[in-house]
């Protein structure tokens, strides 16, 4: 009954449709990437879905050159932890950004990325860039 309002499956269905979604605690205002049963700040369960704007900056990044088997054909590719404007951070794969232009602080924008038929979090150039 007390299921998180956004399951992992629901999160990635929204990703596929072009929307990043967070949870906002109705009790203390904490933001979290779902799924999360209890608020890690106040330990109540009063989550509400929050649509994120999908804009953020690169907090850290790497260029994967030796990839797991399922991704070997994509290498080299860049992964980044992106700090979103609302304050939460998430790992994503960078797309349409030349590898030599990637840097900490670079503004990026969320876009859905399907890898092997699975919806994943991608980030491309910011519209402002």
């Amino acid at each position, binding site marked *: 009954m007390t299921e998180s309002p956004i399951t*992992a499956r629901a999160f*990635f269905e929204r990703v596929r449709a072009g929307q990043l979604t967070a949870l906002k605690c109705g009790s203390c205002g904490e933001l*979290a*990437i779902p799924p999360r049963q209890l608020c890690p700040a106040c330990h109540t369960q009063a989550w509400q879905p929050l649509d994120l704007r999908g804009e953020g900056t690169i*907090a*850290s*990044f*790497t*260029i*994967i*050159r*030796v*990839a*797991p*088997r*399922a*991704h*070997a054909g*994509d*290498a080299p*590719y860049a*992964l980044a*932890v*992106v700090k979103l404007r609302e304050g*939460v*951070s*998430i*790992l*994503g*794969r960078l797309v349409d950004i030349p590898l030599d232009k990637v840097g*900490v602080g670079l503004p990026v924008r969320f876009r859905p990325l399907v*890898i*092997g038929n*699975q919806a*994943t*979090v991608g980030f491309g150039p910011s519209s402002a860039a």
Partner: protein
Amino acid sequence: MRRVAVIGVGVTKFGLHDRTSAELFAEAAQDALTDAAIPATAIQALYYGNVVGGETEHQLHTGPQAASVLGIPSVPTTRFETACASSHAAFRHAVMEIAAGVSEVVLVGGAERVLNVSTAESTEYFAYASDAVWEQPLGLTFPGVFALIARAHMEKYGTTEAQMAAVAVKNHRHGALNPKAQFQKQITIDQVLRSAYVADPLKLFDCCPFSDGGAALVLASEEVARRHRKPVWVLGSAAASDWMLLGDKRDLSRVPATERAAAAAYRQSGLGPRDVDVVELHDCFTIAEIVATEGLGLFEPGAGGRAAEAGRTSLGGEIPVNPSGGLKAKGHPIGATGAAQIAEIVTQIRGEAGPRQVDGAKTGLTHTLGGNTATVLVSLFGRD
């Protein structure tokens, strides 16, 4: 709570083996029993670390498997899996079993076999310790996790690739003194810096190898340990966890689980970082050693890279780190690593480490990190 001592240690050579992980464990365990001068019948429980047995050996239920191969099939066994920290977690629970008065003698061990599968396969299996829904589908690897940490550390503190290379050079220099090490060959800063990028900014020589190997420890209550020639006392042992997802970690340049586990272990022992004579810590990547030396309080946050470059963590330096060669040169059979680190510290405190002996080492610390920094164990050891 009762005092607990390590009275026997055993470690196989690390590297390529054509034996199962249970066989590797059994070799190390027999050596540990011989070292402890105690019969196998004295063992009341086995606490065992193994991580990817299900993937590389199609073997689950590795606790009783290991006990059967050793020849003590009737003792209760428990297999621990906290990624690369598994046998250190097993050790902590064995300490608690003896401290609580449940058992007098407990065998701790771990083993791993991965060199029977391809690098591509083992890279994939190790990535299973990151999140299967949020991170693995993006093609995250373990070098990738620590590359993100390295980039954040470089950005925040100005840590350089040459400082990271100094960690690799130092650990290979130590490993050349360890006959059990996978790599017993010195390397140069230039070789590290010219090696190929695996996950920028980490290069091949910033990474520990894939390894097969086993390690074992005999733990005993004070009453039993007093009859042993050189008991090494467990002064503290603590575990801490942190968020699984990289995006949830507030500051990628730090490992909060290291800081929390270290604080708890120091509190239990009444010691601080200045009291430690020798350290075995989790250098799965060169940046991991730098961040760990900071998290353990050996150096201020951001000072770890410069300390490594200045030789402060070398044998003969002010606080020798990884005299065994560390994961980088000794090797990293992930299920065995925590127990092997403890075996090295026990050997150092006994004064039996030969050419890699830290002069006058009385107090030692081990630090083992699991996977994506979500698990850390820290233990402290000393002699009478």
